[in-house]
């Protein structure tokens, strides 16, 4: 069992949405999701918008607790890498990167030592010390990805951050990610970019309306998924 990185056992989540005067309605987001991912492997999660992919990542990251079922990351630090949610717009890129590192569980001193690499990878140059409110979308994305790389958790949960920046940066970020994957990092990836999924993943989990539709090796599940996603003729 020790070679597992992530174990989900019959995980279900129902959210209640509140209505006026106390009535509430239940809405099943995830139902009976089970999977086990060995250390050093890369899992891609595919499915339509609203299938529950991002929610599943949040459950693995320990942000939300499922109503039923068990989640175990065997003491590994799993964090969700997204594009700069929760930045303080009046602070510089440097201060924001530092804060992200501290939020992700690094000590201030450790993260301070990695800021130079964030600046270098993000190619922000002197903009790194400007408030992030002045950044373009692409610059924001570069800062987000560069920070995420330096935070370097045991398990990387990546939600749609591969399609960011210009073509050149996209290539560079995918290359950096592949280096992590090759060096035995456990990665879970949500992306609508089929090329990225095919390129990086060993396993695929296909979820549909909160349930597992298929799980298995990349080639098998991916061809089945693409078949199903073809527009009906």
């Amino acid at each position: 069992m020790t070679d597992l990185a992530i174990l989900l056992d019959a995980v279900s989540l129902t959210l209640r949405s509140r209505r006026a005067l106390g009535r509430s309605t239940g809405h099943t987001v995830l139902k009976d999701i089970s999977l086990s991912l060995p250390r050093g492997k890369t899992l891609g999660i595919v499915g339509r918008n609203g299938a529950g992919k991002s929610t599943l990542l949040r459950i693995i990251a320990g942000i939300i607790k499922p109503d039923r079922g068990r989640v175990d990351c065997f003491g590994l630090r799993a964090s969700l890498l997204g594009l700069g949610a929760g930045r303080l717009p009046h602070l510089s890129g440097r201060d924001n990167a530092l804060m992200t590192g501290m939020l992700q569980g690094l000590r201030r001193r450790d993260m301070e030592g990695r800021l130079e690499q964030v600046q270098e990878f993000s190619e922000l140059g002197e903009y790194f010390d400007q408030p992030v409110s002045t950044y373009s979308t692409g610059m924001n994305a570069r800062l987000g990805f560069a920070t995420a790389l330096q935070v370097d958790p045991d398990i990387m949960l990546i939600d749609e951050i591969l399609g960011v920046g210009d073509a050149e940066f996209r290539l560079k970020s995918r290359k950096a990610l592949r280096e992590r994957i090759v060096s035995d990092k456990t990665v879970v990836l949500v992306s609508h970019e089929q090329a990225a999924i095919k390129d990086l993943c060993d396993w695929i989990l296909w979820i549909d309306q909160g349930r597992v539709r298929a799980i298995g090796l990349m080639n098998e599940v991916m061809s089945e998924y693409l078949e199903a996603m073809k527009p009906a003729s």
Partner: protein
Amino acid sequence: MYRYLELIHYRALAELKMEASRLYLGLLWWVVEPVLYMAAFYLVFGILFQRGGEGFVGFLLCGLVPWKWFSSSVMNASNSLAANAALIQQVYVPKWIFPTIVVVTGLYKFLVILALLMCFLLIYGYSPGVSWLVMPLVVLVSFFLVLGCASLVAFIVPFLPDLKMILANALVLLMFLSGIFYNIGQLDAAYQSWFDLNPLAHLFQLYRTVLLDAQWPVWNDLFGLGVIGLALMGLSFSLFQRYDRVLPSVVG
């Protein structure tokens, strides 16, 4: 735990920096804004209503300065989880840190204003006593009370958003009932026992006893308030712990 304290301190400083950078007068607003606030109360109650007479300014300020910390913290804390919703859904952070950041930001401002208040009292002719040495303890007890109330409100609001609608009014009522611009001792004895139930009225009285009268505080009051504050903190922190991984779905 230590790294969360580091984070709270860093976020509080960032918050202050951010406020200052948004305005032309920057840091000066820290001082100007509370002075304007207090001047408004002095104008109405000190000059127009002719209340209090001798020593009224000191009396008023000793209530208003800690009150401002309390009320702005509770008000801002009520919004603190919603304001950080994007972050809460992206990273696991214990949710109690968000109201705590609000209260600590308020604390830093409060300390500056308190220092100014003490300077003002000296210039105004009050003489400092040995009792002023107990001020750190008074501030600590205030911190417990402010944090206890602010984090409890911060916890309840996501589950019961309607509370936000009455919060501002409840705070106004509480301000009038805490003996800030009148002396509770001068009220009808029948009402006085009700005021004894208000911890804030006791708290402001502590500031007056220590700063204006240069006397030692009533120790029972000081420790009693500390216990109430710690109990409120304990209650809200255990609620936060219990719902820590449920709150992200509630605030989103």
